[in-house]
């Protein structure tokens, strides 16, 4: 062969993937950044549950069930209870409601709670013992929540309960058809199992002594006294408090109310009382309420269930007088401000008993003489940040303190009180809480979510349920629970859909592996913004590049 001075011509060839030498990141004027925003469900949850987090785990099916449950009990030790009785404000907040129907968060929570009870999973073990002792007065949701969290932090916790059984309003205020007692007992037992001491039938009467015996005291005595209104009534009139009806029924000796029962009030307790009345023998239960359906404080599902069971409601009505088995009802009308006023028109209603469900009052007898602990509007005043009363070392949470009187709120406040006590015992102030950025619906790219209807829990036929206290709502089975969990849009948080990774025209996103999410390669990212635009969960921000 001949020798050649010049190399062959290849029309300029080069080696593969040599473009890595060219860093297109310098073109960028905006950079994508992954963010974790707070979803509206969590913002709406008084217990402060990481709902998106545990739904995410539940989406994995069987392998994720325990993980999901553990994320719930990180804040709330009562998933099986709350999965039944919570009015789930989270679901009102759920962004999916704007797309089709909100996620059935509550149903999934119950599924997880029941799965945990069936599997016998234990609550997390306490941290190393601190040697500090805390007394919790009352064993309702606030008290047990506070006790649970304090125990996890390593403190010795004693709960003293005046009643014979623990649970507070969960036991004595909520009918068994909504919350089976074995479920409640099992979730309370789990708290006992990690070392919380519950002393029942032990009324605390001396706060000063309690403070000497313990390093801190948390008051969670609830609001178990029926509120009274003045109704002109004859001697033969049978008027009882709803809270007493519920408690006595819960204790196993329901009161005799007769065939016809009128319930006076419009809250959830009124609904419970009316439905309970039907279960303990009333053929006719009428709720008498001063205002309209729109104004009724009872949760709509409670009202619907009550009506479904045959409870009647007499709107815009007050009980003007009770005479024997005869009620005089005055028709009301609303003024321009929506307030009811008597019309002077009357009618009569037959009732064997009148059940008053017009609110409950806190039992503040323990605080008699404690002038340093102030009481406003019938409840103990606390510092909003520290949950502490006017007396150092004494905290209050739940219905005895200001705020919503729901179990979920009580659990959240109990948790907060536990954190506050822990800081108090350590001599530290409460840490500042970063402001939450909400993952709004507008941030989402909902195109990517599959169409899927909510899985409704089956409800027992109304005719069947009024005969007893068997549970009305059936839980989801595993398949449907996972399905429902998978309807969660993971608002504001990456759920590893791979859109950013797959849709980057510049191949400038690295996938770090399951659970590890993604990383943007700023050497090459040109800042086009497709990743942010196509992120279903709205969890990428584009921020101006500062050169």
């Amino acid at each position, binding site marked *: 062969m001949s020798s050649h001075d010049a190399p062959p011509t290849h029309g300029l060839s080069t080696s593969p993937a040599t*473009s890595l030498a060219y860093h297109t990141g310098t073109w960028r004027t905006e950079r994508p950044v992954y963010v974790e925003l707070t979803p509206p469900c969590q913002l709406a949850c008084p217990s402060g549950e990481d709902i998106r987090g545990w739904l995410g785990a539940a989406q994995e099916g069987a392998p994720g069930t325990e993980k999901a449950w553990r994320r719930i009990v990180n804040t709330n030790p009562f998933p099986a209870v709350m999965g039944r009785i919570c009015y789930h404000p989270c679901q009102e907040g759920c962004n999916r409601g704007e797309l089709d129907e909100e996620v059935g968060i509550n149903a999934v929570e119950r599924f997880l709670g029941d799965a945990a009870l069936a599997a016998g999973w234990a609550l997390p073990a306490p941290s190393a013992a601190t040697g500090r002792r805390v007394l919790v007065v009352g064993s309702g949701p606030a008290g047990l929540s506070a006790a649970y969290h304090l125990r996890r932090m390593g403190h010795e916790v004693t709960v003293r309960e005046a009643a014979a059984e623990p649970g507070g309003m969960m036991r004595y205020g909520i009918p068994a058809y909504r919350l089976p007692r074995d479920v409640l007992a099992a979730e309370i037992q789990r708290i006992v199992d990690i070392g919380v001491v519950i002393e029942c039938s032990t009324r605390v009467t001396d706060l000063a002594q309690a403070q000497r015996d313990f390093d801190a005291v948390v008051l969670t005595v609830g609001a178990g006294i029926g509120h009274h209104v003045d109704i002109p009534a004859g001697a033969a009139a049978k008027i009882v408090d709803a809270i007493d009806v519920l408690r006595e029924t819960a204790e196993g000796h329901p009161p005799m109310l007769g065939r016809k029962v009128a319930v006076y009030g419009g809250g959830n307790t009124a609904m419970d009382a009316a439905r309970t009345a039907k279960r303990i023998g009333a053929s006719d239960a009428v709720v008498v309420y001063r205002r309209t359906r729109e104004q009724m404080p009872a949760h709509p599902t409670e009202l619907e269930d009550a009506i479904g069971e045959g409870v009647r409601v007499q709107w815009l009505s007050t009980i003007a007088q009770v005479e024997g088995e005869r009620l005089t009802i005055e028709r009301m009308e609303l003024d321009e401000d929506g307030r009811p006023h008597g019309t002077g028109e009357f009618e009569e209603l037959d009732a064997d008993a009148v059940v008053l469900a017009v609110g409950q009052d806190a039992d503040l007898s323990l605080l008699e003489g404690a002038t340093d602990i102030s009481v406003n509007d019938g409840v103990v005043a606390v510092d909003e940040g520290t949950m502490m009363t006017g007396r150092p070392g004494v905290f209050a949470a739940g219905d005895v303190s200001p705020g919503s009187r729901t179990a979920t709120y009580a659990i959240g406040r109990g948790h907060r009180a536990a954190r506050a006590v822990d800081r108090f015992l350590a001599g530290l102030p409460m840490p500042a809480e970063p402001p939450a950025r909400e993952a709004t619906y507008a941030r989402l790219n909902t195109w990517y979510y599959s169409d899927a209807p909510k899985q409704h829990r089956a409800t027992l036929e109304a005719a069947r349920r009024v005969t007893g206290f068997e549970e009305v709502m059936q839980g989801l089975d595993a398949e449907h629970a996972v399905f429902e969990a*998978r309807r969660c849009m993971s608002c504001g948080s990456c759920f590893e*859909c*791979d859109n950013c990774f797959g849709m980057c025209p510049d191949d400038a996103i690295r996938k770090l592996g399951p659970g590890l999410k993604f990383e943007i390669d700023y*050497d090459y990212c040109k800042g086009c*913004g497709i990743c942010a635009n*196509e992120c279903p969960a709205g969890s990428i921000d584009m921020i101006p590049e500062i050169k």
Partner: protein
Amino acid sequence: MTTVHIPFMQTGTLAVGGRLLDLEERSVQSQADRPSSLTKGHRACQGCAEALAARWVMDTAVEESGGKLIVANATGCLEVFSTLYPESAWKPPWIHSLFANAAAVATGIASALRAQGRDDVRVLAQGGDGGTVDIGLAAVSGMFERNDDVLYVCYDNQGYMNTGVQRSSATPPTARTATTPAVGKAPGAPYGQGKSMPKIAMAHEIPYVATATVADLRDLESKVRTAMSMHGARYLHVLVPCPVGWGTSAAQSIALSRAAVESGIFPVLEARDGEIVATHPIRERVDVEEYLRPQARFAHLFKPGGEEGLERWRALAEANIRRFRLTEATP
């Protein structure tokens, strides 16, 4: 607890991947170790859908061929932004010859492989709408009618973007380009011109013709897979929004593709041996305005005098929906 199959995924197959999917159900693009046949460092404009589509197409083709894929590329944006000497953003063996001849070069490669007995190596040709619908049409048509064993992919951005946004025969009516300016009595590209390359491909009765967009990765990947499972001439036409040429923000490329499909403007379909066998049904019907308004090239349609143009677009969408039955799911 028993394990049950849960058919519903959070995002179904609409998103690129999802941690809930079984491995075998995941898209190629969702894999951390995907081929990335068109890798980082290329110089496509921000938000370039052609760069995106090319990686999607080629990665799937690379996987389907077991890594044995040779690519012939027409002159155009795709070639220029990926191979400015001494850098190349391509990983598979890749050749660029001329503007009009990618299909013929691919035929040559396929013929050589056949002569060499290398039936394990597959050939893909690709180009823009100019290189396919206009200047390269003869070569593409020749490759089709001979039924050469080549998958030809056209990335259609509806104009000569590389040379500064001039009109091609894939430019839609009313679109403003540098050679169909939005001035005078009939602003933008004229009515009654242009041609449908998918229909031309179908007229050749080649084994496989499909259209796709970057709005639906799974659809596109499955079409590439289908095409790669077959031999003979196959044609894939991918709509690729061009932020520069269309006058849109870089972030909108996928959203615009979606609007093109959901409005009925761009029918997504599959044909075998010249007959349509499947059309992708519209999921959430939107008005043509959702597609047109974000594009500066159609800005004159939203000014006084643009109403008629807008109505003609609506009529076009309606005609597509009727003709391709876009509101009916294919069995």
